[in-house]
């Protein structure tokens, strides 16, 4: 470990300022540390201690270091849950640095406040614009930094890594470091900096024939002035960005050496395992426990009644779970009167009835929806509904903790390491500085790991035992007792004018979380709109699901648009295109998907095609699904997907995310349903909470349009929203049967 020098030994390069986004400092031995940040103060010392590695290693900045072998390590503040963020962020940094991709490594940033992903918070509001919108500018460094810190905003979500951290931090870090290396070489060689070129992690001066690897000038670069706004490359100069640079995380995943949260081992300690059972109905507690049989079972170390859950700690997970199964318990009576799924949907429809044509909370009011509806030549209306969904990541919820001497060490897969750290600190009544987080790879997140409930539970068990414990939820616990994509219901009325144009659009639904604009389809030219939310009680707790509100809203909106096309007697593609006069990028995407699918040709007998268009997380996606109904049950045979993310930094990774989103979305559309009985979740494992199987997976084709390189969209989520409505619309095309409630398989049981 390198030692951290006193601030007095800092180089002249160290100048963190409120508006300065880049700062630097020196570690003992002349090692350079630079950081890109939106916060005041100088965190160099602390960061240095967290990311410093072995001897002879130079920390070029807090987002990158270069070692003596010329290996560049990108330090990435986002989690890797299969979406490829680690690799593509390193790719962006490496491009600006002109680094040799084969010499680039990735390191997960430690869970420290200095790595707060302020830009993600910003991204939630600024929707991926490179510069802040004017109305946000005054608050950026103040309000959003503060909120980011308050919310422990080192988060991975909102399909935001590339468009926020990548654009605002990784590229700047790489460009600044390159400029400083060039400056140091120019000084040493006595040549103008402008004559030095960089490529493949090597500095060259053509005229004098000199060249040197970056490592040689890493320390000297510390003495260079720091460019506060280094020039970033224009797309024409990209070497790595926009290419299919091989992902850095794949080899370890293929050869089995990749380590996930559930693989955690506390070195040198006897591992113990906890199995847990929460009360079956949300909000209820353990009233009475009988553990007499469990106590005598093999391997059992402790039995805990934590009030809101039961836990057995044992020598192995299996023994813990077996003993837990042997515990009988009684629970307190639930307060909510919602007992069944029917009860839940009855609440929704009552809320919609009460809101009527104009009630509820207004979200969007455009033109005169009421007047336009009154004057419409033709009116249509439809109600849609979706059930609760579980995230079902293949790695079940788990956390390993060791609580001792007023300190806590945690190993867990999480999308929010800092939030997990403070939640554990709060639960244990210790300071967050006394909690050390290790957050390895995630075996699936999908929004479930934005929540920290399982981390708190593990910390409480660890506090009770005082020795290291690995808590693992069973699959049943994971399916039944977690947090869920909300169920929801949405009611539409629409008015068509005499020429079949959708001129009035009235919509009210019951659940609104995130993103704020998910309930709108602003790209369509619909002159009069009233969109409202009539909030209704949810029985199960909510957690963001892949694409969050878009996961239900896209099904509602794009099904209704399809019904409007049908009422107007128009082709679904033509009907949509006619409304895209103001949205050329959306039009191009929709036309592309239609062309890929051969929309103008007739599908084979028994088959139908459906189309849907969405914009989510800044990325425009159109999908055409072809469904084969010849067996009487729907089978999606093909999905053609066209997407415009602005610019795909790694097209292979982007396509991969579209495919993943489509498969995840098909699972939800066809099978996904968490239902209630006696207030508890009915499903338990993959036999009754089905995932799409290999043999059911359609052929998926993805094409990318790089429509606007200065405004990037996300990748992790946008592939999902269009697939459910496109499939339902395809089923309508094939059978004239309109699906207004998911999951689809229930209609063909």
């Amino acid at each position, binding site marked *: 470990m390198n030692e951290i020098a006193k601030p007095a030994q800092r180089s002249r390069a160290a100048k963190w300022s409120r508006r300065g986004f880049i700062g630097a400092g020196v570690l003992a031995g002349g090692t350079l540390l630079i950081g890109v940040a939106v916060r005041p103060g100088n965190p160099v010392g602390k960061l240095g201690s967290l990311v410093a590695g072995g001897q002879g290693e130079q920390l070029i900045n807090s987002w990158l270091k270069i070692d003596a072998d010329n290996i560049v390590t990108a330090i990435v503040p986002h989690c890797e849950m299969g979406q490829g963020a680690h690799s593509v962020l390193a790719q962006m940094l490496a491009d600006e640095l002109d680094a040799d991709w084969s010499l680039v490594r990735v390191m997960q940033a430690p869970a420290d406040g200095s790595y707060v992903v302020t830009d993600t*918070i910003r991204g*939630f*509001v600024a*929707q991926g614009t490179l510069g802040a919108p004017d109305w946000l500018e005054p608050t950026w460094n103040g309000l959003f930094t503060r*909120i980011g810190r*308050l*919310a*422990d905003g080192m988060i991975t979500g909102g399909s935001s890594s590339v468009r926020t951290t990548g654009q605002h931090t990784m590229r700047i870090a790489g460009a600044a470091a390159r400029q400083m290396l060039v400056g140091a070489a120019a000084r040493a060689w006595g040549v103008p900096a402008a004559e030095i070129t960089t490529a493949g992690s090597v500095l060259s001066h053509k005229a004098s024939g000199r060249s040197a690897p970056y490592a040689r000038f890493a320390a000297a670069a510390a003495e260079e002035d720091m460019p506060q706004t280094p020039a970033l490359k224009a797309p024409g100069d990209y070497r790595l960005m926009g290419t299919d640079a091989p992902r850095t995380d794949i080899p370890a995943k293929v*050869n*089995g*050496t990749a380590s996930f949260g559930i693989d955690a*081992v506390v*070195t*040198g300690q*006897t591992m*113990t395992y906890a199995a847990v059972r929460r009360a079956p109905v949300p909000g209820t507690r*353990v009233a009475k*426990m009988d*553990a007499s049989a469990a*106590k005598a*079972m*093999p*391997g*059992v*170390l*402790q*039995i*805990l*009644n*934590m*009030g809101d859950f039961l836990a057995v700690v044992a*020598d*192995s997970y299996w023994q813990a779970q077996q003993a837990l199964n042997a515990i009988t318990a009684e629970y307190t009576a639930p307060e909510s009167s919602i007992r069944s799924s029917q009860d839940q949907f009855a609440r929704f429809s009552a809320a919609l009835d009460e809101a009527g044509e104009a009630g509820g909370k207004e979200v*969007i009011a455009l033109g005169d929806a009421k007047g336009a509806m009154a004057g419409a030549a033709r009116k249509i209306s439809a109600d849609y509904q979706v059930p609760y969904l579980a995230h079902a990541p293949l790695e079940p919820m788990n956390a390993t903790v060791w609580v001792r001497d007023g300190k806590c060490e945690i190993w867990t897969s999480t999308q*929010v390491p800092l*939030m997990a750290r*403070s*939640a*554990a600190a*709060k*639960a*244990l*009544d210790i300071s967050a500085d006394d909690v050390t987080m290790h957050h390895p790879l995630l075996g699936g997140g999908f929004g479930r790991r*934005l929540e*920290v409930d399982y*981390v*708190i539970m593990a910390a*409480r068990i660890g*506090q*009770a035992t005082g*020795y290291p414990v690995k808590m693992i939820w069973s699959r049943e616990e994971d399916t039944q007792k977690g947090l869920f994509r909300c169920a929801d219901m949405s009611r539409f009325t629409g008015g068509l004018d005499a020429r079949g144009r959708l001129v009035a659009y009235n919509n009210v639904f019951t659940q*609104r*979380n*995130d*993103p*704020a*604009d998910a309930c*709108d389809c*602003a790209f369509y030219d619909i002159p009069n709109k009233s969109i409202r939310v009539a909030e209704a009680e949810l029985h199960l707790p909510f957690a*963001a699901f892949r694409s969050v509100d878009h996961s239900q809203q896209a099904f509602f909106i794009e099904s209704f648009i399809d019904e409007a096309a049908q009422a107007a007697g128009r082709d679904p593609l033509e009907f949509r295109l006619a409304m895209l006069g103001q949205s050329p990028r959306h039009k191009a995407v929709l036309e592309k998907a239609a062309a890929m699918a051969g929309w103008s040709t007739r599908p084979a007998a028994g088959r139908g095609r459906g189309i849907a268009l969405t914009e989510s997380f800044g990325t425009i996606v159109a999908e055409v699904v072809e469904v084969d109904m010849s067996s009487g049950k729907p089978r999606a045979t093909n999905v053609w997907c066209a997407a415009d993310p602005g610019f795909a930094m790694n097209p292979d990774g982007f396509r991969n995310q579209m495919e993943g989103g489509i498969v995840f979305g098909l699972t939800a559309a066809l099978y996904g349903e968490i239902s209630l009985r006696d207030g508890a979740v009915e499903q338990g494992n993959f036999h009754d909470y089905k995932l799409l199987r290999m043999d059911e997976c359609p052929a998926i084709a993805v094409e990318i349009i790089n429509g606007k390189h200065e405004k990037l969209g996300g990748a992790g989520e946008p592939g999902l929203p269009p697939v459910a409505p496109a499939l339902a619309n395809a089923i309508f095309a094939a059978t004239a049967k309109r699906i207004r409630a998911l999951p689809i398989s229930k209609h063909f049981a």
Partner: protein
Amino acid sequence: MQPTAAFAMTGLALLLSACGSRAEAPVEQIVVRQPGAVAASAPVGAPDAGDPVAAGKVAFAACAACHSAAPGAASGIGPNLHGVVGRAAGSAPGFSYSPAISKSGITWTERELDTFLANPAAKVPGTSMAAGQVTDAPRRAAIIAYLASLKD
């Protein structure tokens, strides 16, 4: 359409509400024994964490997908490991080894096994054993103790 400030805050409210609260202590805590301590009446077959051979037998589960360890049992994806300690590398009868192992010249002492399991590909570059790395030293020691206990 321009989002309003009220729009902007919904996502953040979601984040803020997720923070934990001060936890309650256990309502009931039944301590049966300490980890590592022998159970008062040790149930038959329960591994004793203080005994490395028993701990190694449990940890061998990570290897059992590919290796059998019973005397005379057929090799699987990997060779039978019965009696491997002290044996020349690549010598289990009937198993087709990679040239890397066959030509390694290693005799599987406990020490050699320790470096091999710590990083198989580094110890024997080109080995076809694609999984089975054990980074945790005590766990490695336990597995090796278990393997050493397997003698006719």
